[in-house]
């Protein structure tokens, strides 16, 4: 949404001469607006680190439940890093295309691990 819809220049040297920043999705003005968000995310991550440590000393019944809670918090933190620090909340389509493949391959990887552990053939 912050894009300046100008046609991309074919020649990079030409583009540099025209002030390339104007073609980027992050102009200086936008960046200034985001700084508060970066600091807030940093503070939130620190807070949730403390929460993770605290929750690990709370007994949720089973060890598995404790692991699940910790992974939930970690996934939230990782999501913040990816969305805000890595700008994934507002990225070009090309990047999402790459990451969709990564997502499914990782799922497949952990699925293989699960199969090896669960072993549906010999435990039948």
């Amino acid at each position, binding site marked *: 949404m912050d894009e300046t819809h100008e046609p991309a220049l074919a020649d*990079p040297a030409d583009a540099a001469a025209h002030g390339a920043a104007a073609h980027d999705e992050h102009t200086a003005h936008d960046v200034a607006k985001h700084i508060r968000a970066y600091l807030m995310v940093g503070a939130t991550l620190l807070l949730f680190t403390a929460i993770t440590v605290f929750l690990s000393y709370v007994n949720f019944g089973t060890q598995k439940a404790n692991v699940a809670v910790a992974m939930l918090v970690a996934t939230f933190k990782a999501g913040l*890093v990816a969305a805000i620090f890595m700008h994934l909340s507002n990225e070009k389509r090309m990047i999402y295309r790459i990451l969709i493949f990564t997502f499914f391959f990782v799922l497949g990887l952990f699925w293989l*691990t699960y199969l090896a552990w669960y072993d549906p053939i010999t435990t039948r």
Partner: protein
Amino acid sequence: MEIPYTVTARPDTGLWNAKVGIWLFLASEVMLFGGLFSAYVFLRLDAEPGAWPHGLLNVPVGTMNTAILIASSVTVVMAWASLKMRKFRAYWWYMLVTILCGVIFLGVKLVYEWPQKFDHFGAFIKKDALEKYEPYLGNHHLAEKGLPQRTEISGHLHNKEALNDPNVKEYEIALDPVNADPTNPNMDRPHFLYVPPTDKIATIEKEDVEYANMFLPKHSAYFASYFTITGLHGAHVLGGVIIFTYLWLPVGTKLYKRNPEHLANRVEVAGLFWHFVDLVWIFVFPLFYLL
């Protein structure tokens, strides 16, 4: 050779080239760490009940390192934002802080955490000898509470020659608190603060020991995965520090004067790598330190 599309978007991808490049690289990194994490999951799920160790790492130190890494993620994004706003002085300072954070993180790992483990000792007791060492294991107490039994006695090894000399028939260990006072309910769960070995000495005969070693990768599946994953992660931190230092040195200043947007993009790409390293640590920290 002039590398094209360093600052302008390539018409077909809509992105400058390095951005596509770093994301492809990070996608492969996800698979690399994903493989190791799935190995960790496999080893942990397959471990005998009670055999997966808890509370062996120093939690306050790990928490501090986590905070340092998060702070460095903030400073690197601020360094990039400063370049975007053409504030080179601010960039220089933020980058310096980022580099220092990386160096401190590595220093804590390599100077304190790892060597402390290398200097720690643990002996797994054979099943039929567990009763003999009951005063150090407290398994009756644990069974009453429905907790999994202990099979390892750990602490500071006094007679290091016992590791390699077959003529030495026993290990002399200054016991960890958990083995010095095993029926104390305080020992049922891991501590937040690190507690050093006590001065209570135990003698353990080698013939009662299933396997014994210092806390090295070969000590257990836990330490094998701990050292592999934190080692690879540490190598990434080192890589990030080297790249940041390169961008921070006069090379970066020169590039800034020639084309500030190009330097900003380089910092953005290096920053994306750094955030990924931070992201991996967000999972490493609870899995190895806390759970």
